[in-house]
C-alpha cells in the first residue's frame, strides 16, 4: 500500500510539472507575458522595468525556472484589479466553490443512487422509463440554461427561493459555510441543484447499469438462496458492488463539478472562485487566470490520487493485488 501511494504521488508530481509547463508556455507563446505581468495602463518605463525584473529578456528555460520557483513559494503574481496576491484571492474564494461542489456531489448521490437503483431493479415499470428519459434530458440540457430556468421558476414565478448570492454563513467545526444557516441553505439549494443535475443523470445511469448487471449475477441468487431479506441483498450485496464504479466515477467527476461551477456561480452570483475566474477573464486580469489554473491542476491531481486510493479500499481485488505485486 505504501509503495502504491508513493508511486502515485510521483506520477502526480510529474503531471503537475507537465501542466505547469503547458500553462507557462501557453501563456508565453500564445499570449504576451508582458500583458500578464503589467497592467494595461502601464507606461513604457514601467514595462521595461517589469521585463528586466521578471527576466523576460532571459532565455525561455530560465524564465520557466523562475516561474516554478515563484509557484513553489506560493507566488503567482498580483492581481491587476485587486492588487493582492492572486493565489490569496483564489484561496479566499475557494471555500464557497467547494461548498457548492460538495453539496452538488451530495445531491447527485442522494438523488441519483435511489433513482438509478429503482430503475435498475424494476426496468419494465413506466416510472423507471420516465427516470431514464429524464436522465437523457439531464445530459442534453446545457447547465447555464437549466440555471436560468431554475431562477425563473423558483425565484421569479414562485418566489420560494432567492435567485442570487450566498446568504448568511455560519462557522461550525471550524468550517465557515452557508450550509449551517437557514438563509444560507435557501441560497445554496438552487445553484447546487443546477450544478448537480448533470451528475444526477450520470449517477442514475451508472447505478442502473450496475444494478442490472449485478442482479443477474450468481452471487445475488446465492444470497437469495441463503434466505437473506431483500433489504440486506440490495443494501449490502448489490450496493457494495455498484458503489465501486459509482464512487470512482463520481470522484473523478468532482473536478468537473468545480470546473462547471464557473457557469453556475456566474448565473447565481455565487461568490466562488469560478465567478472570480470569469471576472478575471473579462477584465484581462491574467495572474488570477494563471493562479486559478495551477490550483485546478493541483486539485485534479489530488482528486485523482484520492479516488485511486478510495477505489483500492473499496475493491478488495485491487487492494490485495497491489500488495502481492
Amino acid at each position, binding site marked *: 500500500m505504501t509503495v502504491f501511494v508513493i508511486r502515485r504521488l510521483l506520477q502526480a508530481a510529474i503531471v503537475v510539472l507537465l501542466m505547469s509547463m503547458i500553462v507557462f508556455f501557453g501563456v508565453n507563446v500564445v499570449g504576451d507575458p508582458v500583458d500578464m505581468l503589467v497592467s494595461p495602463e502601464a507606461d513604457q518605463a514601467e514595462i521595461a522595468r517589469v521585463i528586466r525584473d521578471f527576466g523576460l529578456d532571459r532565455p525561455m528555460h530560465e524564465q520557466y525556472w523562475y516561474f516554478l520557483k515563484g509557484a513553489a513559494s506560493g507566488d503567482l503574481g498580483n492581481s491587476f484589479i485587486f492588487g493582492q496576491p492572486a493565489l490569496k484571492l483564489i484561496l479566499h474564494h475557494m471555500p464557497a466553490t467547494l461548498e457548492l461542489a460538495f453539496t452538488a456531489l451530495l445531491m447527485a448521490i442522494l438523488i441519483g443512487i435511489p433513482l438509478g437503483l429503482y430503475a435498475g431493479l424494476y426496468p419494465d415499470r413506466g416510472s423507471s422509463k420516465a427516470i431514464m428519459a429524464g436522465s437523457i434530458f439531464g445530459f442534453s440540457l446545457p447547465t447555464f440554461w437549466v440555471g436560468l430556468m431554475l431562477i425563473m421558476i423558483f425565484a421569479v414565478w414562485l418566489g420560494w427561493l432567492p435567485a442570487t448570492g450566498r446568504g448568511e454563513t455560519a462557522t461550525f467545526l471550524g468550517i465557515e459555510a452557508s450550509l449551517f444557516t437557514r438563509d444560507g441553505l435557501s441560497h445554496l439549494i438552487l445553484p447546487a441543484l443546477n450544478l448537480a443535475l448533470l451528475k444526477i443523470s450520470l449517477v442514475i445511469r451508472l447505478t442502473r447499469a450496475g444494478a442490472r448487471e449485478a442482479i443477474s449475477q*450468481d*452471487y445475488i441468487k446465492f444470497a*437469495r*438462496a*441463503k434466505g*437473506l431479506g431483500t433489504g*440486506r441483498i440490495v443494501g449490502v450485496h448489490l450496493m457494495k*458492488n455498484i458503489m465501486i464504479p459509482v464512487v470512482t466515477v463520481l470522484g473523478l467527476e468532482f473536478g468537473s463539478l468545480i470546473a462547471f461551477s464557473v457557469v453556475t456561480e456566474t448565473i447565481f452570483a455565487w461568490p466562488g472562485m469560478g465567478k472570480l475566474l470569469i471576472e478575471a477573464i473579462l477584465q484581462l486580469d491574467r495572474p488570477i487566470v494563471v493562479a486559478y489554473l495551477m490550483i485546478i491542476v493541483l486539485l485534479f491531481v489530488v482528486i485523482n490520487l484520492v479516488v485511486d486510493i478510495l477505489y483500492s479500499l473499496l*475493491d478488495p481485488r485491487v487492494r*490485495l493485488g497491489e500488495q502481492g505485486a
Partner: protein
Amino acid sequence: MTATLSVTGLHTHFFTRAGVVKAVDGVDFQIAPGEVMGLVGESGSGKSITGFSIMGLIDDPGRIVSGSIRLKGEELVGASDEAMRAIRGNRIAMIFQDPMMTLNPVLRIDTQMVEAIRAHERVPKRDALARARDALGMVGIPAPEERLRAYPHQLSGGMRQRVAIAIAFLNEPDLIIADEPTTALDVTIQSQIIHEAQSLCKRTGTALVWITHDLAVVAGIADRIAVMYAGRIVEAGGIDAVIDTPLHPYTVGLLGSVPTSNRRGERLTQIPGMPPNVLNLPEGCAFRERCPRAAAACHAQPPIAEPRAGQVVRCFHPHGQEASR
C-alpha cells in the same frame, strides 16, 4: 415416515415474448431423509429450473403454473415471500454450479457466512462466527480461522465450492439442492467434493438433490436417479437398476455416451439430433424425433409405467421389455 420432499405434478413455465417455454412440465418425485437423488439431464432439460422451483427462486417471466412441492408435508407452492425466505438457506439450501461466481467478490467469507446464520436465527455475532468456523472445518478447509477473514478471490475454485457447501450446511437444512456443483472443478477436486458432500449428508441426515448432466458423477454419489428430458422425468429408479438396466431409450443413449473403463475399445454412441426447441415442443413424447424406437404411438404422451418394482419409465417401447411383448 414422511418424505423430506415430495414434488407432484410440478409445471414451471416461462412466459416470454416469443412464446411460453414449458421448462418444467409435469415432474413428480420424492426424497426420503438422508437420501441422495441424482437429477440428470442435458442442458435445457429443466433440471435446474426444477431446483429453483423448489427454492422458490423462479423470477419473471417464469411462474410455477401448477403442482405441489411439500417439504415434510408443508406446501411450498403459493407460500408467502417471507415464508419462503425463512425456508431458504434454513430448511432448504442450495449449492450453485460456478464457485467463482457464487460468493460475493467484495464481501469477506465471514460476512457471507454469518449473515446466512443471522438471517434465520438471533445469534450473537461471536457464536455465529464460531459456527461458521466449525462449518469450514467440517468441509475440510485447513486453517478455517484465517479463511474466514479472506475475500473469495484469495481462495481457489475448490476452496470456494467448499465454502459454498459449508454455507449450505450452516443451518442444518432438511434438504440441499446441488446444481452441478462440481462441473466447474478439476476432476481430482470433484471427487473430493462429492465425497465430502456425501458423507456430510449421511452424518446429518440431510436429503440431497444432485443436479448434473454427468452420469458418472451421479453413479458415485446417488441412491436414486431421475432422468429428465424436455421438462419431464422420463425414467427414475434406484441407481443400480437404472444404470445396469435402463428402460428409456434416452437413458440408454445417455449411458452409451459415457466413456467408462469397462467398455474399453468400444465405440461411444451418440444420441442423434439436438435437444428439442423448448418453445415448440412436439406433441406426445418429446424424445421421439431422436429416438431409434419411435413409432406412431409416440405421437401421444406416454403414461408412466413401472415395468420393474421401483423403476418407473415414461415410454411406449422401453428397453428390456421386448420379451414380454
